């Protein structure tokens, strides 16, 4: 019995050690919730808003930046306006596109029509692309969303934006739940939803990575605060490293939410 207890205690101690390390020894990253369908009010959208929508999809739901980033997993797309015409003339091109818009669309829906040298699937001699079809599978972009991404890529890649905003909402788009579509009601809700407290000391949160915001209104005005949210690296607070804060809040926050947050922070003195 003595041995049994000793062995049991030893085993439990080991299990507790693994549990403790996994629970407290490493960062507890909370994965993003599953993406929800958004209602696209295309009729009321300006082209700038449509391009911004494309950027949001490119950086979010489309999961494009998983590979199209500086890590070199897939070609960068910031020069697409210059590169696309050259690729259309390339002998290896197997598609039917004639314009930059058509080329980008084809790349998203038939990725193997042209594979940039060095980025093909292993062993295929750059004839097969590892890129998934963005209209199917787990990405499942709707027609309007694809067009928005094309508009964004044309705009950011130095090409003329030729895409037209579709007149109707994307086919099959489901109505969002009321609570998903409605803007948040208070600045505290915005802070909680966007996880500001993970890095900043703000409201009742105690983050330490970014500047303390509990008295930010005493030294900074609304313009400064708004710019810091929309373009975090425009001015780096003294003693803090740049490139740490996501630059995508401008695309994620609704206008009302942004103003609420700015007013709240400006009033924190």
């Amino acid at each position, binding site marked *: 019995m003595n041995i049994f207890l000793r062995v049991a205690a030893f085993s439990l101690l080991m299990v507790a050690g693994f549990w403790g390390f996994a629970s407290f020894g490493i960062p507890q990253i909370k994965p993003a919730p*599953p993406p929800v369908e958004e209602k696209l009010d295309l009729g009321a959208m300006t082209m700038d808003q449509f391009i911004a929508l494309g950027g949001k999809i490119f950086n979010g739901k489309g999961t494009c930046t998983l590979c199209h980033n500086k890590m070199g997993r897939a070609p960068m797309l910031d020069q697409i306006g210059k590169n696309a015409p050259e690729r259309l003339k390339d002998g290896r091109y197997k598609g039917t596109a004639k314009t930059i818009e058509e080329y980008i669309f084809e790349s998203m829906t038939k990725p193997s029509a042209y594979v940039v040298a060095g980025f093909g699937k292993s062993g295929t001699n750059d004839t097969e692309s590892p890129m998934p079809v963005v209209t199917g599978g787990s990405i499942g972009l709707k027609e309007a969303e694809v067009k928005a991404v094309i508009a964004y890529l044309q705009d950011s890649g130095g090409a003329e934006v030729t895409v037209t905003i579709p007149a109707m909402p994307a086919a099959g788009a489901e109505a969002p739940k009321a609570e998903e579509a409605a803007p948040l009601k208070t600045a505290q809700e915005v802070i909680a939803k966007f996880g500001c407290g993970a890095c900043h000391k703000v409201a009742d949160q105690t983050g330490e990575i970014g500047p303390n915001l509990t008295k930010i209104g005493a030294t900074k005005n609304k313009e400064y605060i708004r710019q810091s949210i929309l373009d975090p690296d425009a001015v780096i607070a003294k003693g803090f490293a740049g490139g740490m804060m996501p630059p995508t809040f401008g695309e994620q926050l609704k206008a009302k939410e942004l103003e609420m947050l700015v007013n709240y922070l400006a009033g924190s003195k």
Partner: protein
Amino acid sequence: MLKRNIRIIGVVFLLAISAMFMLPAFMPAASASEAAAPTAAPAAADSAAAKTAAVPDANAVTYPPAPKLTAADYPTVSGVNPRVAVWLVAQLHLWLGAFVVAVPMFVFIIESIGMATRDERYDNMAYEFIKVSITAYSLTAIMGGLLSFSLILFYPDVFKYLALIFKESMFAYALLFFAESAVLYIYYYGWHWLQGGNRKWIHLTFGLLLNAFGITLMLLANSWTTFMMSPAAVDAAGVFNGNTWEAIHNFLWNPINIHRVVANVAYGGSIVGAYAGFKFLSAKNKEERAHYDWVGYNANFIAIAALLPLPFAGYYLTAELYAYSQQMGITLMGGVFAWIFIIQAVLIGALFLSANYYLWCGMGRSDGANRYNPRIKYIAIVLVAAFLVWFTPHTLVLTNSELKSLGGPYHKYLGVFGIMPAKNTAVNFLLTFTFMSFMFYRRANKIATVSWATTGNAIQIALFTMGLINIVTLGVYYGYFTNTVYKVAASIPQVLTTLTIIITSTIIDTLMYKGAKDVAPLHWGRMPARSQYALFLLAVSFTWLMGLMGYVRSGIRQHWHVSGIFRDASPDAYTPTLGYAANIITIGTIIFMAMVIFVFWLSTISGKHVVAKGYWKEQA
């Protein structure tokens, strides 16, 4: 006779495996198929799906699309979290299943060794192992039944969708389960009846059949799981348009099969090792102690032998996962799951260190090992250093003041150890030096007598030296002097180098120590008690590690029941944090360990006879 019998049981094994895989094909509607429609699987899997496209059939069965569910479609039971219930039951079924599939594999080998050497100790040990697994077999079946009920109860639409596609293989599975049970009972209860001459060969054939049934059952169950990760022959709406074999032979089926077979053997070895460790510590006399020391040594040997190729099977699985879906691969290695590989490093570090520690303690069995003892500390240093490299995270979690003093998220010197090539190098060092530990142990009580012993040793030293230099060079070149996308390219030549060292050195050593002189006898039982705790650590670490990797394998589907085609709309359709997963894994591990202790205890009391004097009526 020996050759003839080996030929016969070889043919029986092949026929059994073939017959079992043909079984689903003979089930009703097995030929149902439609013209292949475009697959919904990621681009990388398109070609694989296209290759398996079915021929149109006039009697085609139409399959429904994947249902679009809402939270209301998931039944609830008050006070029960469906995901946690299914998670725990599935994991317990997997742990037990891994054990009962693995044990007959090495029982068959040990029984064969006993027959070849006519050493009865092997036969007794094989019998003892199968005795331990027989109760675990019942528990596995109970957990399998519970899992089925849980799925039907909490995820009826998911179960229905998968059951429609896999109905033939599920039916075949049920039949095979009966067959496996029958063979297992004959194999176990007939052990002492089928002894000697041809009867022993018949018994061994039952052992082979048991393995054929067990492995086939595992392969079929794997296909259901891997279909959920890499669905095959389905269109964008989730309509299945293939046949049974296409559904089974999906993209990730074989990589998971290989990984699970190897891991199961290592896991089975570790659990049996824990059993031997417990019996060793509880031994009442010298003979019993010697016996369980010997059993523990063999169990640890099995665990290490399977542990060595396991990282390679893991690499292959991950590479195939990337090939199937780059998104899935990045989610696994660079996304929310990236940190689990640091926990994995700790667990695998614990596995290697405990296995090596046991070997080093085992060198105390022979006085001849004194020659090698001074070298052990260097192996220990290398193993710990390799573990620390593997353990070093790429990005550090820092407070602002730490970030400032460090000048960024990467450490000036340690940052270089955070990337994959450094970790690959570390893993290959772990493997090579573990093998070196084993070689020293093996040589402990012997001296080679062949004339070319000096040359043989020199070749082995050169082999290790050149191999290790090659591993480091590959790691450094690919890690720090090439583009990011080529960083993992070092892994294959590094693995090949390690395998070359292990295989070549084993061949040389086997030839060199043929007819070697015994310089000091092995004293079985001359082991410190602490060495047995290394065996417990091995079993506990393995169990927890399997739980962790189960969470990841299932989690990379994210909010999909079947990747990309059947969305999870339940309230639990989010990936839990590592801390939450750690809670479930820990609870599962404790329940499993309690079950294992129960199994061990049953095997102990089954051999006990109490004479109840005066209880029974005297018979005239």
